[in-house]
């Protein structure tokens, strides 16, 4: 089964990976233990789970500006998501993706991306085309 999800054109390279999904928001400073590569904020719905090498699917960004540098720092150690998909990115997420060379897309035509994609789905992300394809569920 293949499902195509159109979105606004994003940033970064085309990538493929396994989705990790939550109806929650994202800040690299507020939510992550970047040394261990896990969500560390106890209130986060992905608390304790690794974000490395996954297609991370969340609602929106929250908090401050540090994520713009932190995505680059995480990617330099190969401890970063392959892509981040959001219902609504803020400016910081886009700026961080641009520096890190990380795939990022938002504004999905068919609605809430945290319900359109499920944890464990195999997903292909093509930011330039504004297209995300669920290749296997």
């Amino acid at each position, binding site marked *: 089964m293949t499902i195509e999800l159109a979105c606004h054109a994003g940033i970064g390279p085309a990538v493929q990976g396994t989705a990790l999904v939550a109806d929650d928001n994202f800040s690299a400073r*507020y939510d992550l233990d970047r040394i261990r590569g896990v969500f*560390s904020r106890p209130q986060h719905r992905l608390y304790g789970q690794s974000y490395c090498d996954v297609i991370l699917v969340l609602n929106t960004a929250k908090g401050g500006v540090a*994520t713009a540098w932190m995505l680059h720092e995480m990617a330099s150690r190969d401890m970063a998501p392959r892509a981040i998909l959001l219902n*609504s990115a*803020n*400016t910081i997420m886009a700026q961080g993706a641009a520096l890190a060379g990380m795939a990022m897309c938002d504004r999905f035509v068919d609605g809430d991306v945290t319900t359109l994609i499920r944890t464990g789905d195999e997903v292909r992300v093509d930011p330039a085309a504004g297209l995300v394809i669920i290749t296997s569920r």
Partner: protein
Amino acid sequence: MRLSDEEQAMLAGEMGPACRWAIDHQLQVGRMFDAADMVPVSQAHMMADPESLGDAGVGFVEGLVKDGARVTVPMITDPRGVDLSHYLPLGQTEEMAGLERRFIAACTAMGIMMTDTCINYQTIMPPLNGHHVAYGDTGVVIYSNSVCGARSNFEGGPSALAAGLTGRTPRYGLHLDEHRRATCRFVVEIRPRDLMEWGVLGATIGRMAGSYWQVPVIEGIEGAPTSDEIKHFGAAMASWGSTPLFHMVGITPECRSLADVGGESLDATRIGAEELADLGAPFSAVGEALDVVVFAAPQLSLVEMGQVAALCAGRSRASGTDLVVCTSAQVYGDAARMGYVEAIEGFGGTVLTGTCFYQQYAREIGEANGWTRLLSNSAKIVNILGGYGYRPALASMADCVASAEAGVILPAGEGGAS
């Protein structure tokens, strides 16, 4: 995006590889947000602490220096991550300090002014109504947009640096009139009594607004808050909601009336004591042993330094409870001259200069000093530090100092009025 001849030349590398990186970065971001062109900026302000940068980020900036990078507009910096005069007692390492020194050297070589402050609107050069700027630090952006009437998106460190190099930024988001109109409306039924309560109110509205692209308009505030009050209000709103702009009817410059920002057609959400208590409830820990009191986020103004000093005078902290105050170098000089630093240090507190607590390897200094239970009057900092392994709690400035003296978190009001 439409580019001018000068911008085309930047992209072609005619102004060097650093400028080419900068405008290419800006084009990627601008296209994602449908920017039509670029807009000149009068100032840039960069958040770049070494914990966020890491070795990779510092190396990247050093590479720009080797490529001849030089800023073209006045560019200043957010708080640093290491106070180089006080890092070993804090439990920071030589490696952290070394990273900080390398980054400072790189910034200085590019012509960046190391102001190291998140209260530049109180201490350096506030922007004027209508100024387009490229500011980092959410507290700086929300104050500058809302209180000063300037126009800035959240510019993370890389984008602020790019703006400093090119002298412009993509024209999207809050540079455009249509994104400055109110999208949600709140009626405040209770006026905050101190800085902590102003922060809780801002946090409550930010949490309800919930997105960078929401613009709250707020009614019910009779009489203008002080600069410090609206500073805590805005910083907390930006932290909890990723909110870069609010309007306050009759108080902020773009909103003399509700109609000025299109707010009259929006449904109003009322905010009273119950809503504020709901936000504050997870940050109550009365009776628990207290490891550290922190006054920071944002850095303290001179007025706040005087208030903390007055509360500390003639008292001492409990032996098991530390007190940390973060301010800017600009404020520190006056605070020392006026005896405020001496009063805080006489209490047993530590005054850090040019840093902010959560930006200075908060996890590592917490582990080094055994700090878990933390008390602050900043609704911003308690939102941040949970992910760093702290158990943060909120209290007024007066209750924070009284609790530091007692070594346990006291009930609200025990410390007297702030």
